[in-house]
């Protein structure tokens, strides 16, 4: 069947199972958009291309499918860059399609020309510049394959406007032939057997679960392994929801803002079994001080992640789901009662440190997130932005839904949350989606309130408004002589702003109003923004200062201690 390039692009997307794309049109994608109405794909018109990339990313994280964003050449393409880097850093499969100037004009600094394949080379898994319509189908087929397989990531396909308009016989390639790309998905049986022996012999083991478990859809298998061998589970920020967080074996998030008992357990462990986490510096702090007593098993689909920062005793290259299934029959049932009671002792001591905020009459974020967790039974899809709001969400929400937390971990992109929540809601229409965001981050992509309104998406926004770029303010308070340079923010009346966009706005000033406001928002059929005017100089604790071991942290002050 003869088709033009624009039709081929949409047809390839349909065949890849795409029903939703996020984008903004422009000069060099007009031919592409001209053909869209003929295809069963819903286009979400965003207000900024960065938001389109974040929305595609949020869609991918919520559904496990490939997210797609579209932008025009030049500024449209460069606006995608932050979103592409965010997705790539967090192994989120997205395909970005950009228009490009006509192939005859390439390299002439034509109007709205930018070398987007050159720019995105270091922040994509792979990218393509397609100048001929006959190469389009193959490039798109490969792009989706590369984005979703192996260590997933971002792929960009840049298509010149003449390639969009050129006509050719459409043949959808059944296979991809990439001799240099053959991900290992199954663990080496000998290494699996040795790993099982190490697990069976360990007296103080910890399972560390990263985003790889979520990507692989291996939550049930991870939980089964942990329960069979009675091994407590620590997650990274992006590993959250890999195991239901109400499971008694779940020890919380480790690392810079990990709980005291979590980090103590890591530092005391004699074995760490890492599934799909990359031993990021925010988790390990300085590598030399991390888990000094532990032998390390590291399971990752990407060989380059193994032994990158931390010495590994048993490397296993493979998909977390396959490796867990291989390990499960080889791992023996165990009690490990002594180890669990040691951890429970630390857990109880850590819990006592929450009394200060529990008894506080102030409007503190812990109370908001904990209430939200109870009202939604830990079953909402939570999207968080970056900074204090992100850490409070991670610490106080009990994520019981698999893929139930969407957040920018690796790149730490403020402004990610609002557009990512749009993507998540588009992908999971039947699940409540809550956004937890600060007053700094929301203003980086606040224009997307218009997209929420236009699409009629019932997204609930909990804005933790403290009038500061709060995480940096906290660092200034603790480590930089309270020199609040560049951090105070004079914000708008967010509730009125939301109303101006056609979204219900509520302002909450006191602790007593938190639960009624949250319940109201949860019940209302439509988007709601709640502006919580929280304690302005409230800190995220614990915090591990830079350069220290993860159990050498500044902890939550007890009720009888002076707060820092």
């Amino acid at each position, binding site marked *: 069947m003869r088709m033009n390039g624009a039709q081929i692009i949409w047809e390839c997307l349909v065949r890849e199972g795409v029903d939703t794309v996020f984008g903004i049109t422009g000069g060099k994608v007009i031919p592409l958009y001209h053909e869209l109405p003929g295809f069963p794909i819903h286009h979400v018109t965003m207000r900024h291309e960065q938001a389109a990339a974040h929305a595609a990313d949020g869609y991918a994280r919520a559904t496990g499918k490939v997210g797609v964003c579209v932008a025009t050449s030049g500024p449209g393409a460069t606006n995608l860059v932050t979103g592409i880097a965010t997705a790539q850093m967090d192994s989120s499969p997205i395909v970005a399609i950009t228009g490009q100037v006509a192939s005859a004009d390439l390299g002439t600094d034509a109007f709205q020309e930018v070398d987007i394949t*050159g720019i995105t*080379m*270091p922040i994509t898994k792979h990218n393509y510049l397609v100048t001929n319509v006959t190469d389009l189908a193959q490039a798109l087929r490969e792009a989706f394959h590369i984005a979703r397989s192996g*260590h997933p990531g971002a792929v960009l396909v840049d298509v010149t406007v003449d390639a969009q308009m050129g006509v050719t016989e459409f043949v959808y390639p059944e296979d991809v032939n*990439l001799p240099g790309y053959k991900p290992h998905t199954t663990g080496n049986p000998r290494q699996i057997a040795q790993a099982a022996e190490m697990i069976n012999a360990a007296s103080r083991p910890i399972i560390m679960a990263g985003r790889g478990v979520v990507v692989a859809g291996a939550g049930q298998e991870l939980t089964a392994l942990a329960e069979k061998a009675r091994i407590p589970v620590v997650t990274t920020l992006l590993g959250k929801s890999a195991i239901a967080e109400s499971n008694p074996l779940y020890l919380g998030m480790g690392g810079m803002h990990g709980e005291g008992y979590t980090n103590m357990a890591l530092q005391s462990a004699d074995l760490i079994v890492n599934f799909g986490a990359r031993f990021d510096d925010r988790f390990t702090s300085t590598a030399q001080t*991390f888990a000094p007593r532990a032998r390390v098993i590291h399971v990752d689909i990407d060989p*380059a992640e193994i*032994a990158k920062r*931390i010495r590994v005793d048993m490397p296993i290259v493979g998909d977390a789901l396959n490796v867990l299934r291989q390990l499960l029959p080889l791992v023996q049932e165990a009690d490990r009662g002594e180890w669990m009671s040691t951890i429970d002792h630390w857990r109880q001591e850590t819990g006592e440190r929450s009394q200060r905020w529990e008894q506080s009459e102030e409007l503190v974020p812990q109370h908001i997130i904990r209430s939200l967790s109870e009202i939604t039974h830990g079953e909402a899809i939570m999207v968080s932005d970056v900074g204090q709001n992100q850490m409070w969400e991670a610490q106080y929400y009990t994520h019981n839904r698999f893929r139930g937390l969407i957040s920018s971990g690796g790149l730490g992109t403020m402004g990610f949350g609002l557009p990512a929540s749009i993507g998540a809601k588009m992908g999971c229409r039947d699940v409540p989606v809550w956004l937890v965001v600060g007053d700094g981050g929301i203003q980086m992509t606040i224009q997307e309130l218009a997209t929420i309104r236009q699409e009629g998406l019932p997204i609930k926004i909990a804005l933790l408004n403290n009038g500061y770029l709060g995480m940096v303010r906290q660092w200034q308070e603790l480590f930089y002589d309270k020199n609040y340079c560049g951090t105070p923010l004079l914000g708008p009346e967010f509730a009125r702003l939301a109303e101006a966009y056609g979204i219900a706005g509520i302002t909450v000033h006191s602790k007593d109003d938190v639960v009624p406001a949250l319940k109201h928002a949860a019940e209302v059929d439509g988007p709601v923004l709640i502006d919580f005017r929280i304690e302005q100089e409230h800190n995220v604790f614990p915090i591990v200062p830079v350069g220290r071991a993860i159990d050498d942290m500044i902890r939550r002050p007890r009720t009888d201690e002076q707060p820092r």
Partner: protein
Amino acid sequence: MSLAQNHDNYSRRTLVVLMEDRPGVLSNVSNLFRRRNYNIESLTVGHSETPDISRMTVVVYASDAVLEQVSKQLYKLINVTKVIDITDDDAVIRELALIRVHAVSASRAEIKQLVDIFRAQIIDVAHDSMTIEITGTEDKVDSLIEILRPFGIKELTRTGRVAMVRGALQGASRR
């Protein structure tokens, strides 16, 4: 536990990298070395025996751990098909240099003598200079350059190292 901090055990390593001959692949590879902060000493690229496959020889200054990362990161590039560490293999390693040296009639004979000792070739003679071509190990090229330096080197270009294992490529260190 740290790997990045481990700076002992650094030496010059030679990698042979095979990749599909596609636009942007060379810049992909060189970009990778830059952004991952790898210390690259030389890089040469050209056709291989297989059509559409380019062959690159890279010399990096690295430890075992860093070299392992270099190799793994190269493999992550979709168009890279093979990475082979030939540092410890029995390999033929050669470099080519062109050296234009200041030469007036009084010094020509002496330069010719030196060139002959090195089994190099004079490939051009002008009224005040001679151009010499030398092929050999980097040490040999270095030595000739040092010997010629007193005459005045006006222009110099070196290809960097190309390498090939004697006999067939063995199985070791291939992923």
